[in-house]
């Protein structure tokens, strides 16, 4: 059981100044597990997943990713090599073409030749179904296409774990499904995923476990079947009622 545990978060605490953002968060993720994190705005979802790859520092507790502790020397860099991340705002590099966005990491951090990096980049662009956009600048793409490029860019680093922070929140409604489809496929291929999202249809389809956060704490966890059927806490129930209304 512990052997295939890829993320172990134990009694994690974090505050911004006086404001406590995360309080005693415990979360374990097994290899290949898909976790959907939801909760009201400001509940600490982004902060939690950003702690996992060291984009945020924490005050106390521990995070271990694939056996590497974030607090050990050089731990953050080694963890980042295993973890990909997709942001709400895509964060593509605007001065580089799509293909150069995908090859930058593999070439500079992994030392791949341009030829190999481009071949691999094209493979992933095929997978997210936009190989024909390879030579364009990000700004010439639609939001949905940009987010798929961002996913492909992460995959080029061959991560073991993928983090998604509200990947569809900045998208027009008609583009949400093209991004979610790519994520569903990724889940089918067995990728370990931590997804912050309010797309409950997606959660129902792929999540092994739902995590509900409120006020910096994990209030409830359960399989989608359990939580959609009958949430244990009133807070989760109220939250679900609110977002399922529309």
């Amino acid at each position: 059981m512990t052997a295939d545990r890829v993320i172990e978060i134990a009694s994690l605490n974090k505050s911004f100044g006086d404001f406590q953002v995360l309080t005693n968060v415990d979360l374990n993720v097994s290899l290949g597990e898909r976790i959907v994190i939801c909760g009201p705005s400001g509940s600490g979802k982004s902060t939690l997943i950003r702690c996992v790859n060291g984009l945020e520092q924490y005050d106390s507790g521990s995070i271990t990713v694939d056996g590497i502790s974030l607090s050990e020397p050089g731990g953050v860099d080694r963890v980042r090599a295993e973890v990909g991340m997709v942001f709400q705002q895509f964060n593509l590099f605007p001065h580089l073409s799509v293909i150069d966005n995908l090859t930058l990491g593999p070439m500079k951090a992994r030392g791949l030749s341009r030829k190999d990096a481009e071949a691999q980049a094209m493979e992933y662009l095929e997978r997210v179904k936009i190989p024909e956009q390879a030579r364009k600048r990000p700004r010439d793409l639609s939001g949905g296409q940009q987010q798929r490029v961002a996913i492909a860019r992460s995959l080029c680093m061959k991560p073991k774990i993928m983090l998604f922070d509200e990947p569809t929140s900045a998208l027009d409604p008609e583009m949400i499904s093209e991004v979610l489809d790519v994520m569903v496929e990724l889940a089918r291929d067995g990728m370990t995923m931590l997804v912050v999202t309010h797309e409950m249809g997606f959660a129902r389809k792929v999540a092994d476990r739902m995590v509900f956060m409120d006020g910096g704490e994990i209030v409830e966890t359960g399989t989608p079947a359990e939580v959609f059927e009958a949430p244990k806490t009133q807070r989760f129930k109220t939250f679900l009622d609110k977002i399922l209304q529309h």
Partner: protein
Amino acid sequence: MTRFFKIWILLGACLFLAACSGDGTWGWYVIDPSTPAGQSNIWFLVGGFWATIQLSLIATVLSMTLGLLVALPGMSSNRWVRLPSRVYIEFVRAIPLLPMLFWVFYGLPVVMKSLGFPITIDAFWGAIITLAISDSAFTAEIYRSGIQSIPKGQTEAARTVGLTYSQTMRYVILPQAIRRILPPLANQFIYIVKMSAFASVIGMQELTRRANELVVTEYRPLEIYTLLILEYLVLVLIISFFVRWLERKMGSDENR
């Protein structure tokens, strides 16, 4: 109409000033290009161009390098890394150029000697070091605001695809920040050109020094200093033309 009016007023003022010069008569003969004496004076004055340009160019390049080295730690999230950079900028910005020039030229060799590194600093390098240091506080701030204008998400994305800090700067942040950084840096070049006049006081034979020397022998300050100002004007106008061009080029890139 009003444009002509202004020009006439300006001309009038010039004539008035001319009349006040020296013994109250015209003295333009000192730089009259139609006489051999005038010609040789003009050549002497214009001969300072090369030194001024050399001085300014080298000082600007050094200031740009030094400024970047000061700016980068100044943006660290660790306050102890940030502190030296902040102190340097505040400190250097507070020192007037002339005292710093004296300190570098007369004082620095003494300091270095007592530290066991005897060096000699001539007027040329004394001026360059001073100009570069004094300007680097400003270039550092230009870098900082340019780099900080790039959204944090760019750094985060770069780090998550495995780039190190310096790779992130080199391949992601600086290429984007450069269009905000280059035009103000080019403006600093103009500033340095003007400030390089101070090098005259430690004996550097640049534009201003030559004008001073000629004034001492010819005693025609109005005419000679007028030409001196025109010399700087030409130099600065050429550079600002270039800066304008650069700004346009960078600006149009942004819309592409």
